[in-house]
Every structure is written in C-alpha cells, then in structure tokens.
C-alpha cells in the first residue's frame, strides 16, 4: 500500500494489534486497503459496522476500531441487511471468504436483487483456509485441494457476474496486489446500493502449497477463465432501505377481525355443530362464516375450524362451525347437527361425520351425489332446479342458506343480515334467495 500517510484525512480505523494471518496471506493487505478506504471516506469508527463471516476472514473485525458483528457462517449478509434497514445512515461492510459466499449464496443473490446498500468484500483465496484447505465454490477446475485430490471438477462461481446481472449497483473484481484497491473499496462503500468486491488473494497455508500457486498464477487463472478485472457492473437502481421508506406509509387492511354486534337476544340451550363439506375454491369457508357471524348477531359464541389440503383451489374444503350459548374452549366437533355436502370432494371427507350422526341430525346433500348412508335425516338439494343459474362456486352459499332456513340452526333473518353485509352483500343475497327457493326432497 503506497499511499503517503500525510494525504490521509482521518485517523486510522485499525487497532494496534498485528493481523493473525499466515506469512504471505493476502488478507492483511486487503484489510489495509479497507482501512485506507474508510479513512478516505472520513468515516468515524462508530459510523461503520464491519460484519464478518466465518473462517480466516471472520477474524477481521477484531483488527478495526469500528462497530462489529461476528455471526454465523454464510449469514453475514443477512445481519448486515438488518442493520442497514434499521440504520441506513451507517456504512455496513461485510467481510467474507469464498466459503461464506458459497454457503450464503442465496443471501448474496437476494442482496443484489434488493440492491440493499451494503458493501461485501470477498477475500477470495479459492479454498477453506481455516479448516484444512478444502475446495470452495470459487476453486477453479483442475486445482488440487484435500477434497479434490485428483483435481476439482466443479466450475468456479463468477461472483461479479452473478451479482452484476441480478441488480447489484457496483461489482468489482481485483486482487490483493492491486494498487487501486483502496480506491475501489472506497467507491464500493460510497455506492448507495449493493456493492460487491471480489478480491482474489493467496492462501499460503494450503492453496499456494497444493498448486504451486502465486501472484502470477492469480492473473493467469483469471485470464484462463476468461474473467476480467476492474469495475464490471454498475446500476443506478434505487437502494432498498431508502426505497422501502419511500413506499411506506400506505394503509393496508390486514387484520382478520370481524366485529359483530348482537342485534337480537335469542335463547340457545345447547351447543350446535354445523358443517359444510365442499371443494376448495367453492367458497365453503365464506359461506360457513355467515353462519358463525349470524350466531354472534343472536348474542351467541361461535368458532369456525377450516380443514383443507395444502393446495389452494383443488381438493376438499371443510368448515366446521360451532354455535354455543357460552365461550367455546374446545373447537373440535364429534357429531354435526347439520351437515351440508356440496360436492364430491366434500363427500369424500364426510364419512366420519355421517357415521356419527343420529336421527336428530340432518344432512343436506347436493342432488348429483349418491344418497349417503347415515342415521340422520337426508335432504337432497338440486341447485340446477333454480330459476337463476347457481354457478358451482356459488353452490355452497345457496345450499347453506337452504340448510339454515330449513334447520333453523341460527335465525334465518340474522343469516340474511350477515350475508347482506359488505361488498358482496347484494350478490350474496341473490344467492341466498335462490338457495332458499330450491326444491328439497
């Protein structure tokens, strides 16, 4: 590092301690360049957070007087992102090795895509220097390491291109021998968005020894791989933390709370169970919801437990509604008083319910399904007999309306009040009327 000391505007951010690196290791010169860059930028120690990864590069933060975060292997970018999001005014510099780059690859990609305003310095010496010199994601093909004893077969990661084509604001490739390294690091730190500096250096403990590798071989390897050095990518996409704050402030209705006023006082002697079994995408849950909220209009308590497969608009959708005169602590249902089977998917899930039901209970089943074998009273409903067309996705609401009206499980007027609320109110009431008008047998 040849910059004369008298030109430096700020005190050093290095501690007095000597680096712990092996003789000839490239990490020390890169860290000296980082110190020089921070001095050039006139940053005070408390304005900088060095986030160090794991491995030899992970020791780096201890040789700076700045704030420091030394976390887990490969996750340094995630901590740096959290710090930058909360404190966009701080300079956040990640120091990681090629090991951390590999294991944390998803974070590197995401940081570039987000263009979060951190600077990542990869001390890239092509192997795991702290754990025995094993091959890493940047070990070039053919090179020898203890884990590639016959030569590496995997292509090396092009760090700069990877982040460059994915949105990074600044991406630079160089070596620990570059005379302009401090200037490039300063450029990276001064960049508002995501800056990546892939700095190739020598691991004298392993890679140099195992491959007769040296300064000239670094340059030769770069050339053989067809990789360029210098500033390779720039973009002026807005920095994430700033862009996030700019977008924030919009009000979004998010919370899943429905406030329901009791508009009637109706006596209910015992808990009732109302189950709708249909298909996902068939608005089963919203139809069941109207029964639950209608019960609350009567001053009762309700619970709605939905069951569905992990898919969204295929497979079954079953909603169990409990209606109770008092608070419900147990939300399971052993025996429905009313079961509405809307579709074949629901039919497939209805077996245990049907088996549990008694002659006091009622099953409403869509007419195109076979008549279920159960002790309960069975009422068949044919949605095709309606004057107005009832689409498949609307069958649940129409049939639930018919079941509510017939069974009286909740006062029908209150069900209508629930159905008539909100943006879909008018459409819902049309379907309720169509459902009630269906012949039942």
């Amino acid at each position, binding site marked *: 590092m040849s910059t004369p000391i008298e030109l430096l505007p700020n005190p050093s951010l290095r501690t007095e301690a000597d680096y712990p690196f092996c003789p000839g290791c490239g990490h020390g010169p890169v860290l000296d360049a980082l110190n020089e860059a921070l001095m050039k930028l006139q940053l005070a120690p408390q304005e900088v957070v060095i986030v160090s990864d794991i491995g030899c590069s992970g020791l780096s*933060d201890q040789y700076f007087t700045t704030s420091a975060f030394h976390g887990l292997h490969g996750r340094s970018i995630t901590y740096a992102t959290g710090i930058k999001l909360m404190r966009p005014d701080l300079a956040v510099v990640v120091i990681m090795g090629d090991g951390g780059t590999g294991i944390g690859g998803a974070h590197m990609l995401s940081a570039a895509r987000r263009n979060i305003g951190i600077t990542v310095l990869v001390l890239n010496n092509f192997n795991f220097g702290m754990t025995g010199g094993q091959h890493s994601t940047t070990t070039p093909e053919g090179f020898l390491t203890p884990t590639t004893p016959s030569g590496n077969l995997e292509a090396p990661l092009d760090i700069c291109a990877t982040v460059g084509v994915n949105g990074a604001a600044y991406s630079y490739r160089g070596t620990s021998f570059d005379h302009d390294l401090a200037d490039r690091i300063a450029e990276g730190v001064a960049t508002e968005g995501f800056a990546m500096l892939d700095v190739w250096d020598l691991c004298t403990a392993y890679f140099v020894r195992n491959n007769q590798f040296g300064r000239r071989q670094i340059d030769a390897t770069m050339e053989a791989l067809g990789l360029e050095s210098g500033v390779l990518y720039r973009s002026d996409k807005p920095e994430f933390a700033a862009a996030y704050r700019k977008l924030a402030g919009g009000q979004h209705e998010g919370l899943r709370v429905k406030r329901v006023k009791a508009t009637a006082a109706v006596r209910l002697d015992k808990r009732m169970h109302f189950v709708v079994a249909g298909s996902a995408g068939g608005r089963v849950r919203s139809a069941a919801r109207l029964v639950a909220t209608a019960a609350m209009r009567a001053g009762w308590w309700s619970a709605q437990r939905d069951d569905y497969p992990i898919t969204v608009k295929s497979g079954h959708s079953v909603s169990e509604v409990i209606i109770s005169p008092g608070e419900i602590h147990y939300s399971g249902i052993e025996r429905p008083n009313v079961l509405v089977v809307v579709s074949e998917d629901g039919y497939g899930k209805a077996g245990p319910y049907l088996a549990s039901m008694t002659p006091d209970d009622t099953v409403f089943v869509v007419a195109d399904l076979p008549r279920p074998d159960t002790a309960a009273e069975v009422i068949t409903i044919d949605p095709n007999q309606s004057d107005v067309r009832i689409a498949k996705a609307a069958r649940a609401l129409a049939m639930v309306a018919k079941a509510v009206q017939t069974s009286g499980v909740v006062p029908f007027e209150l069900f209508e009040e629930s159905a008539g609320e909100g943006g879909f109110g008018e459409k819902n009431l049309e379907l309720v009327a169509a459902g009630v008008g269906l012949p039942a047998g």
Partner: protein
Amino acid sequence: MTALGGLRITTASIEREFTDGATAIVRGALAGGCNFFAGYPITPASPILMMMLRDLPARGGIGMQGEDEMASIGMCIGAAMSGARAMTATAGPGISLYSENIGLALIGEVPLVIVDVQRLGPSTGAATTTAQGDIQFVRWGTAGGFPIIALCPSTIAECYTLTMKAFDLAERFRCPVFLMADKELALTMRTVDPADYEDAVVRERPVIDPEDLDPPAEYRYEPPGEVVPMQLYGGKHPVRFTGSTHDQHAYITKQPEIVGPLNQHLISKIDDHLDEIALVDTDLEDGANTLLAGYGVTAGSVREAVAAARAEGTKVSSITIQSLWPIPERQIRDAASDVDRVVMAELNPGLYKRELERVLPDKEIVSIARTDGVLISPSQLLEVIE
C-alpha cells in the same frame, strides 16, 4: 325454525369479535412495540407474515420477507442490534432452519420474539394439521443446551397478552423468547370478547453506551445473571458483537476463566429469575384427586372437561401451563400438592409428561397424547377422571 319475534335488541349492548390467534399475535406484537419483522412463508404461520408486512410500514416499522428462514432471523438479529424490537414467525420446519441463529441470539444476548405456529411433524408432516410437537425442540434446538424462554397461549386473548409478554421478557433478559402457538389456535376463528384482551406491561428498553458502563465494555458477566442494558449500533461509540465465546469487549477468547463466567451468566440470567417468568392458570377444587394439565390448544379441552365433570358432581382440578420454559416447577408442585394423579394432555408423543414425571416424582402421571392430528376432546379427558 327459530323466529325472532319480539327478541330484537335495539341497543347494541354486545359487540364481540370474530377473529383468530394469528391476528391476536400480530396485535400483541404491535402493542408490544414490535417495529421489525422478517419471515419466510410457511403454513400455518404465513398469515402472521402477511399481516405484519401489511401493517408495519404505515407505523414506521419494517417488514421483510427473507429469501429463506436463515435470512429472516438473521435480519431480525441485525436489526435488533440496531435498535429494533424484532419478531419472526414460522413453523417447525422453519425452527430447524433457525436453529443456529437461535444460538447466536443466545450468546449475543439479543432480544427477539420467535413465534412457532406448530403443525404436525416430523419433517414436512402435515402442514395444515395442528400439533404441539415442537415444545422440546425449541428448548433443545440449538447447540450448547442453554436455557431459553417459551410462552404458550391457550386462547386468542392470551395470544395477544403473551405476545406482549414475550416482548417484555425478551428485553428483560436480552434473549430469544418463543411464543408456542399451533395451527388450531392461530387459524381457527372464534368469538372473542374484546374485554378479554389484557395488556401486558412491556418495559422500556434501557440502552447504554459502552463507554458509560463502568468499566467500559460491551458485555458483563459478573455478577452472573445481571443483564446489562443493550448497546446499539450507531451511538456515540462503536459497539462490538460476536457469536463466538468472548470477553467483555466481544473479542474472541477461549480462556476458561472468561468463558466460564460468560456461559454461567447465560444460564443464571434465566434460572435465577424463574418466578419472573413463570405463568400458570390454575383452577383448583378442594377434595379433587386429579389435576388435569394442558397447554395451548389442549388447555381448552381441559377447561371444558373440568366444567363437564363438575356439572356431574365430580371434583377435579386443572392447570394451564402458559410458560413452558423454564418449567414453572414450583407452581406445578403447588397445583399438584393435594392430588394423587396428574393427567397431561398434549398433541405430541408425551413431551411434557416426562417433565412432570421429573417435577412430581411422587404422583401418578397419566399421559393423554395424540399424534394423529385430531384434537384431544373433553370426552377423552372425562374418561380418565374418576
């Protein structure tokens, strides 16, 4: 058919909510001062992620969807060290991926709330089926075996209160605090009386500059168990943080005379303050010979079983354990002092039963445990009450 007739109420005397535990957790977090959330989509915890990301920006907070679970909890830890009150939410598979960072938050003494909306495992298990299989996992789920705090709400209103409480304990002890929910509690909609939402006291975060600590330091381990105020990035002086064993300035060391007190401190700060953390809800009846015990969703079945048994004239007591870790041993012993039998209801292979066997060696412990995704019903519990 029920006719309303003259039963109409003209004054709106009762207004209740129809809502779920996930919503209550979000409201509790916001009331508890949460201003940073990061999470990764996973059933059945995703509604918390979506609600937090919708709600936080307008309140000046930050909500992030991480590229994976490691990123999500990592962002939370970085943000917490920069002044955030942070929360993340996931399910069992996500806790697996949080594991290493949970250890980082422990050793770095980072306040953090982690919501686990439990689903049936192992592995992918059944994403939309409820379970309580993670309760030992969160206790022992990171290297080292050091204590954590885990709260477990059993009602929607408790989801609100205990989330606030989790934020308070995270600050008080500078450690990750788990909120153990499950699919049933988080996603089943229920009627809730708004009066049941009790606010927990959430203490202010004391912050100190490292230079103002005497002597200046980032961390202090003596006396063990005394928690030093947070030191945040971006203050007057630099702040150092490390996940490696370290001295009081966060410089890496393996000297036994430094590492010993550091690790003892991490144990003592929890174990020496058990009564500050312990939360149980007991319902004891004179002359009862059985204590029904539940936590989370099984506590609801316990409550209904108790009501049904007493209606039949059977005496029975119950306890709802709301702080699973550290184990509220004294409170459990007190509740069980007059019974011969304790029935532990849980949706896992009997994971807390073994704790009760240790805490109550002279009692008969009956395990009601299900791993088939079906809730334990009150009638299943009534069968074991004599």
